[in-house]
Each structure stands twice: as C-alpha cells, then as structure tokens.
C-alpha cells in the first residue's frame, strides 16, 4: 500500500511536470507576432521616405530598415519579445529620420533666405558704391 502510494505519487509528479512543460511550450508558441508594431514601423518608414529622409537623414532611415528586417527575422524564429522591441526601435528610427529630414529642409529654406538677404544687401552696397 505504501509502495503503491509512492509509485502513484511519482506518476503524478511526472504527469504534472509534463503538463507544465507542455503548457510552457504552448505559451511560447502561441505568443502572436507583434503585427501592430511591425505595421507601425513600416508606415513610419514610408512616411520618412516621403519626407525625403533618404536624402536628408540617410543613416537614420537605413537604421530603421535594418531593424525592421531584424524584427521580421525574429518573428520567423518565434522570438516575439525581441521582434516587438526591434519593431519599436525601427519605428523611432524612422520617426527620427523624418524629423531630421524636416529639420534639414527647414534649415535649407532659412539658409536660402539668409543668402538672398545677403545678396540684396551686397547689391545695394555695390550700387551705392557707384553713386557719384
């Protein structure tokens, strides 16, 4: 009786361990890919591309693309938390690329204004130099 009880307990332990393992395994396998984050990263990248980030913020934009690719490959390897993080990083990279492109364009406009002001003033000074 005693022995049989012990064997029974062992069996139960095994069963419980197996169950727990299976549960853990399913838990991992059933974590869904971070679809929303990936989508957000993709749209942030195309937003940055539309803002000419390829020209004005090339390093940041290629960062974003690299990380998006890495996120996709993490999804393939079922490493969902890593994929999630990479997708989020890709999104902020793309947002930074966008912001930097906007800044570069704004600065370019200002430089143009400064330049034309300077030209105007120089032109005036040249004309006043001609003054008899």
């Amino acid at each position, binding site marked *: 009786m005693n022995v049989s009880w012990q064997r029974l307990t062992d069996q139960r332990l095994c069963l419980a361990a197996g169950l727990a393992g299976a549960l853990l395994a399913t838990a991992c396998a059933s974590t869904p890919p971070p679809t929303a984050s990936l989508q957000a990263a993709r749209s942030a990248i195309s937003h940055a591309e539309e803002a000419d980030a390829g020209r004005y913020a090339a390093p940041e934009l290629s960062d974003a693309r690299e990380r998006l690719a890495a996120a996709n490959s993490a999804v393939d390897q079922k490493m969902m938390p890593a994929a999630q993080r990479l997708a989020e*990083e890709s999104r*902020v*990279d793309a947002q930074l690329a966008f*912001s930097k492109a906007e800044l570069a364009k704004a600065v370019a406009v200002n430089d143009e*204004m400064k330049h034309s002001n300077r030209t*105007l003033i120089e032109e005036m000074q040249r004309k006043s130099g001609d003054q008899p």
Partner: protein
Amino acid sequence: MNTSAYKVPMPGRTLIAAAVASLLLVACATAPVRPDGADAARARLTQLQSNPNLATRAPVSMKDAEMAVRVAEQPQSDVEIGKYNVYMADRKVDIAVAQAETALAVDQRAGFAQQSEKARLDERTREADLANSKLASARVEIADQKSQAEITRLAAADAAQQAAVLAAQQSADAAAQLAAQQSANAAQQAAQQAAQQNAEMQRQLDEMHAKMTDRGAVLTLGDVLFATGRADLKVGATNNLDRLVLFLNNYPNRTVVIEGYTDNIGGDEYNMALSQRRSDSVKSYLTGQGISSMRLTSTGKGLSNPIAGNDSASGRQQNRRVEVIIDNPPVALR
C-alpha cells in the same frame, strides 16, 4: 546512504524542489540595475529643456522623451530590456531636439522676411535720395547758369552805362531823354504786370461766378449742393468748390468766410442749425482738399438775409444757399 538519500520522504523532496526553484529564480533575477546610458539620455534631455530657444518649441515630443527617459531610468534585471529602454529614450530625445530646432528655424523666418523687407526699403530710400540729390545738383547748376547770366547782364549794363556816360558827354539832353524813356518804360511794364495779375485773379473769380461786393468777392453756392434738409455735399456738386480750392491755393494769403442760409421752411432753430451744418460741411470739404482751417470761418445765418421771396419755390431755392466771401478784393492787393 545513497539510496536513503535518494529515497527521501515526501516533505524532504518538496524542500529540494523548492530550493532548486528558488535558485533558478535568483539566477534569472540578478540584482536589478539602472541601465547604462540612462543617465546620458537624461542629461541630454535636461540640456534640451534648459535651452531657452528650444524648451517650449516641441512640447509633445518633449513629453514623449521625458516619459521614455523615466522608463529607461528604471532599474532592470533583464539587460536586453534595459538596453531597449535606453535606445528608445535616446531616439526620442533626438526626435524632440530635431523638432524643436525645426520649429525654431520656422519661427526665425519672420525675422528674415523683415530683414529683407528692410533691405528693400533701404534700397528704395537710397534710390529716392539719389534722385533728390541729382535734382538738387541740377538746381545748383541752373542757379549757376543764372548767376552766370547775371554777371553777363551786369557786364552788359556796365558797358551800357559807359556808353551812356559817353553819350552824356556827347549829348546830355539825349541821355536825359533816354533815361526818362527807360523809367517810363519800366513803370509801364510794372503797371502792365500788376494789371495782368489782377486780370488773372479776376478771371478766376469770374470763373466761379463771384460777385464783387464791398465785403469782398462773394461766391454763391446754390442749394444744388445739398439734398433737402441734409447738410452733406452731394456727389458731383463740388465743381465750383474745386475752382475755389484752386483759387485759394493760388492765393495763399486769402481768407474766406463761409455763410450758410436757408429758406423759411421749418423753425428758426432748425434753420439756424441746418445752415450752420451746411457751412461747416463746405468748410470741411475745403479743409479736406488741403486748405488750412485757419483761413476758413463758417457761420450759420439761418433764414436771415433772404435774397429772394420765400413765397415761391424758386425764391426758396435761391435762399437756400451757401455764400463764400473771399476777403480782400483783388484791387486792394498790391
């Protein structure tokens, strides 16, 4: 011993399992630490927040960055998550900086536009000054030419005088005659000129149909100037007034009395007020045309001094009038 150790009773086994489990847990949860780089991110954010040119320019992304930095500053046992948090914080600070700088650049444009406007204005002023100085030098040149002409004229006069002296020596009578002739000529010329000027003034007064009276030249503006009961000048009724303006501009030392008159329709008070408003209206038209109000006096005379009977419409119409008396009859001048 081994077997006995292997075959530990149930409570003993549980203990071991628990120990192993807790060991595993401890292995996972190494002491949580503040991730590397969190402090640097905080420092950069603080720098942005304390830059007076940028601090208020990108409030939304600045708040995002603040939150991300706070998350990054949390102690983390998972190194990967710590790194991730710091990365996000760094990037969000970068974004806030870029957006604030963009906003600053956009705000600076108004200043540039102002600068260029000022430069253009200066340019125009300079051109105007240049034109003025050219004009001034042209005037100086003309003045030079005039004085040159004067010198020539004086020289001619000198020569003439010498000739006259010579002539006097030759014939005093003839010279005296000539001098008399010359002064007579000059007097005649002056008289002619004065007459011409008076004639011109008279012509202008006549153009306005001014009547010469002992008070001066009186210009009567009919009631066609005003609508019934109203004091504002009708549009297109100002031809005669414009001639007056021209006259007053030509003779700037002339002053003018403007008197308003009405017919007898309505009470004394009403007519007095209406005539005052009508004469004021004429005065304000003249000041509007640039005539100094110091030269203009306006009074309302109401229904006094009718120039025609008030018993007929045409008489009333003649009585509704504004008289403009130009002081100093032209003959008294010069």
